[in-house]
């Protein structure tokens, strides 16, 4: 339990750190991801942005200087599929189209998993609704600004998204046995119960959304003519789907099987919208050409499969095959645990498929940034981008390395040494609280 307390204190401490001061990290091996590797490189940060990258940079007066000799600096890691920091349920699974719900409403900035992910170099997460229904809730991109409020964690300027899901999860109908229902009410199952039903739900919803869009267009036309008609009822379920049709909202679709991936691409083409990312997509390697043609991208696991029937025909070469066929690929976590070492998940594609270091690192940095439409702001170490940086004690693609310090917008949010330093103090404080709570003092030699 002590990491929780630790994190609370650290939050207070880090919140104070580095307001607008300049920061110079020097003598590091800088893996920029997009501009090569700089040995003995320095990165200068001013006003939360990367101001200069190169060798022999000098620190402006008053700058914090970090000597990173022998260490590796990479852009903050980005997770394109996370369910961390969601309060009160990851799914609104009672209906097959729950596009009215929004993850942004329920971000819990006090979720300890945010801090644990930071400790693995993660700085940005695409926080998604679960996959219980064909059209899930609205998604949100956050920066892991631990200690800040939910509003302060939102990634300003990131395009909002919506979760879709195909296959076994959304066709699971649920079952409410008659025993818990009022007399006479039959057992209930949710539509749909088949894969074709899932397709139907998506198509139906978009037909509704188009009608809704037309109603509003007609209304605006009448207003423009000087009339005063009653506006259509604002429908929170259809609004985000209209945004999808208008290209203002990304679709992140949970899927596994290649036939379903093709189905979704067909429905999207038919309805006139784009699939931004295919999530998991373990069979994407079979339909890489079609995915590339549609302009979709893939966010998948490195080597995690066989946990359900539709996830059997998988291969760890998926990432490499897709990359070679011109599909933009990222590796995601979908897990509070995996998100703590996404760098290692990326490294696996060097072993399986022979991606080079930069390509591997891109899977968890610039590629997910592109998929989320934030690559102008994050995802690589380039002048003008946000100073989201992670310092590792060894090469980040080695499983012997660990993150030492992590910055977001130039603010430090994780420092391994400080974390370790404050632990005894936390332990003491927590014990004092425990004693007070239980009325029974700890024995002096508990450990």
């Amino acid at each position: 339990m002590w990491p929780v307390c630790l994190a609370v204190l650290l939050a207070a401490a880090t919140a104070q750190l580095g307001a607008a001061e300049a920061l110079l990290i020097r003598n590091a091996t800088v893996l920029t991801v997009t501009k090569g590797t700089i040995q003995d490189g320095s990165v200068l940060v001013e006003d939360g942005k990367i101001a200069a990258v190169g060798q022999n940079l000098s620190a402006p007066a008053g700058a914090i200087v970090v000597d990173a000799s022998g260490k590796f600096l990479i852009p903050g890691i980005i997770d394109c599929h996370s369910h961390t920091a969601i309060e009160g349920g990851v799914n609104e699974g009672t209906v097959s189209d729950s596009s009215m719900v929004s993850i942004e409403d329920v971000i819990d900035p006090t979720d300890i998993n945010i801090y644990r992910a930071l400790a693995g170099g993660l700085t940005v997460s695409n926080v998604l609704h679960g996959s219980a229904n064909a059209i899930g809730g609205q998604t949100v991109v956050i920066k892991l600004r631990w200690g800040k409020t939910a509003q302060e964690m939102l990634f300003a300027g990131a395009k909002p998204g919506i979760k879709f899901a195909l296959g076994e999860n959304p066709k699971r109908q649920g079952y409410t046995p008659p025993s818990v229902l009022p007399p006479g009410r039959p057992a209930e199952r949710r539509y749909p119960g088949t894969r074709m039903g899932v397709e139907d739900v998506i198509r139906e919803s978009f037909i509704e959304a188009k009608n809704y869009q037309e109603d509003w267009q007609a209304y605006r036309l009448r207003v423009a003519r000087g009339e005063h008609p009653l506006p259509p009822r604002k429908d929170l379920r259809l609004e985000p789907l209209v945004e999808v049709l208008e290209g203002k909202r990304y679709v992140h679709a949970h899927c596994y099987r290649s036939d379903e991936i093709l189905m979704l691409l067909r429905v999207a083409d038919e309805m006139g919208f784009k699939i931004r990312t295919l999530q998991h997509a373990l069979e994407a390697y079979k339909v890489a050409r079609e995915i590339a043609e549609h302009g979709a991208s893939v966010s998948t696991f490195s080597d995690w499969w066989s946990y359900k029937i539709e996830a059997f025909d998988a291969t760890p070469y998926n990432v490499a095959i897709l990359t070679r066929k011109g599909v933009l690929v990222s590796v995601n976590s979908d897990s509070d645990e995996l998100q703590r070492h996404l760098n290692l998940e990326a490294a696996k594609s060097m072993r399986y498929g022979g991606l080079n270091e930069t390509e591997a690192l891109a899977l968890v940095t610039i590629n997910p940034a592109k998929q989320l439409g934030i690559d102008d702001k994050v995802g690589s170490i380039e002048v003008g981008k946000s100073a989201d940086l992670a310092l590792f004690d060894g090469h980040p693609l080695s499983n012997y390395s660990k993150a030492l310090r992590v910055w977001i917008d130039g603010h430090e949010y994780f420092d391994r040494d400080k974390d370790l330093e404050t632990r005894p103090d936390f332990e003491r404080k927590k014990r004092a609280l425990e004693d007070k709570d239980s009325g029974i003092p700890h024995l002096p030699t508990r450990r």
Partner: protein
Amino acid sequence: MRRVRFGARRSRCAAVVTLLAACASLRAEVPSAVAIRDARVVTVAGEDLPKATVLLRDGLIQDVGTGVAIPRDAWVIEGAGLTIYPGFIDGLSQWGLAPDSPPAVPAVRAQGPEDRPQTYSFERAADMLNPSDHRLEAARGAGFTAAATFPDRGIFEGLGAMISLGSGNARDMVIAQPVGQQVTFRITRGPARSGYPASLMGNIAYVRQLYLDLDHYKQAKEIHRPEYDHVLEGLAESPRVLLPAEEAQQIDRMLNFAPELKTPVVLYGLHEAYRRIDTLKQTHVPLLVSLKWPEKPKDAGPNDVANYRQLLMREQAPAVPGLLAKAGMKFGFYSDGIDTTAGLRQAVKKAIDAGLSKADAIRALTRNAAEIYGVADRLGSIERGKIANLVITKGDVFEEKSTIEYVFVAGRKFEPPKEVHE
């Protein structure tokens, strides 16, 4: 044992006394006028009066001050050694409503907001009052004379009423209604028998949609006559909406959400507000602090290990009222299910022990609550014309050893049983 001393006026009131003797078992007595003289009066409207008289007539406070003439027909209570406070107000309760019935499972599983799931926005607490609720006596025993009471089911729980905690007629209990709409987020895990919504985000989206629908309904009314919608009428009638906000991130969330509803908002809960004092101060949102302080569950097993945050909350929650008062914020208290006299008194005491001044505690329990609900013209202080709700104690009301001698509710005198203070 009757404790009122009628003094010299006893013979003049013989008839009344006889009548009273006949109905002594009712405990509440209703003369048309009562004077409590030479008592210390904490008016909450201005300075405390060290030795003054409070004159009650026909359920109202007729006069208060040092030179108040006592009319011939008034009963007199010798107030020397007694302190008179305005009656306490519970900011959010289910008092006076039938004990919780299990939530009804709807006949049809809700498929979306259009089915108006778990919505009772149109039901009125004022129409459901049960004057024989045994909790009223326990509440009076702790000095509570009025309460904002809300039905307890669903997401939109219905129209609350400010009620008087006397006895007798249900309609007599209603002081003001509707005083608000309580929203509670109902999160279901496992089979969601009632359908949509089951998650927190579903609840929030539903509340948002319903208020958008209300907007639309109002717009429609300006253009034509839309079909009567009792759900939306209930919302439209609510002068304020009460939103739950217990933990720090929930406070942030509700403050962020509140402007969307275009209705005055009151936050309730607030046990972790010690982390958000500055934020709350900037917003001026009225607050209701739950008196049910978080504590180690009585049946906690060896595996129920609290984390640091929970431990901190258990320690610091009672300090919230003191911090709010120091920051100059308006807050009231609410019983949150505590329904014993001893439980209520101990809970208030805990806030005082954690730094709330007694004067601020009184204010929170009286005038603040009245102001939050817009009934300060009737309740919350000892002033001419206000409803005759009083707490009369021997000793300071917050001291454990003090006894509450009398409680007046709309001019009716109640004597709380003394054994509960032991």
